[in-house]
């Protein structure tokens, strides 16, 4: 039976002692979960290890931890898979599995983080319940099938906090509403029974720590054990807020997106010198003036270094071809946006490769 070294980060903020790592050897099959290994050590060797868990079946979302650098559920991570993910400190010994508490949340003890202080507070922030349209129908409210399918992905969330743990925007801006809560808000924005779709979107667009504070790092997509892809939900919130509800937020989120799209429609390639002023509402907009003045030293330096020229900045060196313009016209002119969600429709099966002569059974073989 393989032997693993479970290296657990121990920390008790009440103790006044610094955090440290404890090594425990466990002999267990590779398919056993990291959680089972922790519970074995806790039962046999050290009962003081702090870990939160319940269902042991990737349903309850209680045992979120970081295993060899990656956030996820301890009960949903096999020892052999964890050991394959080497980190800087485990490269010398392939049997070492480092378990530490999730990031972006304060540690209560050992592997237990304060979900109330961060995760649940942010979930509360997005009004995570349905606000019924009035009048409430006497019988069931029938939701069209396509709407229900549309919000299915966000409903798969089990609130484990793995995405919050590795959110890079939250790392520098702890007030960022964050991936889990924003994905949750799409669950109601996409529900036709909800009375406050616009208000929800307006609120999250105007909040400087809202939907436009996500930096597209994809960490939450890789972290989620349930395929919720929170970042994709945030992009859908932006799409609905900007395109359907035309919410011009004070964070320049909508304006930036709009300016970018128009810039490509006009130029084919991005003309960067226009993008910044247009993202603030245009070169002569009062909002743009301080921003542009603030950018002058950067622009001046870029010019002296030959990164850009004055003529290049003012004149447009390239124009979109009629074919590119036609694509914009045609796709943007469609009555409804065509969105393909692979979580819902799945991937087509790979086509069977045609049998090569060598693989075709001969008459004598098939007889």
């Amino acid at each position, binding site marked *: 039976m393989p032997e693993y070294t479970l290296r657990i980060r121990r920390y008790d903020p009440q103790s006044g002692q610094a955090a440290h790592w404890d090594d425990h050897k466990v002999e267990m099959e590779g398919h056993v979960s990291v959680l089972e290994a922790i519970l074995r050590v806790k039962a046999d060797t050290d009962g003081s290890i702090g870990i939160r868990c319940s269902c042991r079946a990737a349903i309850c979302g209680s045992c979120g931890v970081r295993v060899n650098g990656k956030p996820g559920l301890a009960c949903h991570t096999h020892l052999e898979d964890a050991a394959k993910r080497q980190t800087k400190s485990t490269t010398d010994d392939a049997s070492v599995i480092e378990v530490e508490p999730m990031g972006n949340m304060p540690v209560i003890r050992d592997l237990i983080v304060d979900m109330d202080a961060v995760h649940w507070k942010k979930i509360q922030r997005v009004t995570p319940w349905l606000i019924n349209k009035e009048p409430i129908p006497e019988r069931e409210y029938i939701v069209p099938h396509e709407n229900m399918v549309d919000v299915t992905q966000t409903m798969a969330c089990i609130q484990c906090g793995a995405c919050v743990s590795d959110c890079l925007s939250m790392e520098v801006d702890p007030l960022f509403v964050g991936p889990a809560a924003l994905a949750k808000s799409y669950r109601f924005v996409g529900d036709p029974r909800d009375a406050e779709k616009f208000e929800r979107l307006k609120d999250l667009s105007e909040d400087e720590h809202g939907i436009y504070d996500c930096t597209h790092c994809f960490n939450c997509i890789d972290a989620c054990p349930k395929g919720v892809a929170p970042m994709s939900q945030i992009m859908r919130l932006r799409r609905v807020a900007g395109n359907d509800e035309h919410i011009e937020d004070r964070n320049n989120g909508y304006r930036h997106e709009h300016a970018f799209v128009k810039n*490509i429609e006009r130029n084919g390639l991005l003309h960067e010198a226009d993008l910044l002023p247009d993202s603030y509402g245009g070169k002569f907009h009062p909002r743009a003036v301080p921003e542009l003045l603030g950018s002058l030293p950067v622009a001046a330096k870029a010019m002296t270094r030959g990164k850009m020229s004055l003529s290049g900045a003012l004149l447009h060196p390239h124009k979109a071809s009629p074919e590119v313009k036609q694509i914009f016209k045609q796709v943007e002119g469609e009555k409804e946006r065509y969105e393909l969600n692979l979580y819902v429709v799945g991937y087509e099966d790979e086509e069977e490769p045609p049998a090569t002569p060598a693989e075709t059974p001969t008459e004598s073989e098939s007889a």
Partner: protein
Amino acid sequence: MKVAYWPGCVSRGFTPELHGSMAKVAPLLDLELIELDRASCCGAGVIAEHNQELADTLNARTFALAQQTDGELMMNICATCQGAQSECQERLDANTEYRDHVNQTLRDEGLHYEKGLTNKNFLWLLVEEIGLDTLKAKVQKPLTDLRVGPFYGCYIVRPKERLGIDSENPRDRYLHMVIEALGGTVIDYAGVYKCCGFPIVTMNKKASLTMAGRHLGDAIDAEADCLVVPCPLCHLNLDLQQPAAAKISGRELGMPVLHLPQLVGLALGLSAKELGMNKHIVRPTKVIDWSTSVVASAAA
């Protein structure tokens, strides 16, 4: 090797030294670049955020143009293009009905995207097509004593599954492997796989430049001589905005940031000037102590 070459927008905009250095390095690696000069911006995720089908159609057009050339595959030099295009390609390749719908829009131009294009960033091509042994054999001036911090950014390492990163193709280690193959020393620091902050620079400048400043500071603390990036957008936040990032992080920075083709070019014998390093805000030639390195002559 002949490739359909997509340089992206920024390499021909605010980081012209990237486009220029790739052009200089390509012949040294026996790469023939067929530039896709009719293709449009990949959308950088922003067009997809606005209208997914629009981004998918523009990129399907780029892929179709690449398939019209006699290049063995398509190559890009921008990690953001790689990530945005891989996302669009995933949808296009996954569903025949959707692909047909998109191809319908391209029909008037006589273009058609055939499922299954291979689109590789220069980093992937270096390791998987050219090979590290061939690369090593071409090194004229090994980067001995040059301490290089790899900065992957986001789009070229996540999501892992979409980008085909697994134990057989450890694409999230390729920068490490290339630095070593060129004779340099890999420096580990906290920012290796983090975000440069560029996507939110117009929405939340403080958060954006805090990210950039923190990674640059971490690299300084780890005693790196320079960083290397496969993405020109990372370069904008880490180099062009470095003075502003220094102000926000309240510490002096001065960390040179090299584009991947520049790092390769140095080892293949090109000079810093030929590789356009004089265009950087933090000039590598001023900051790196070239005298202790065998690349010293490159600074001249």
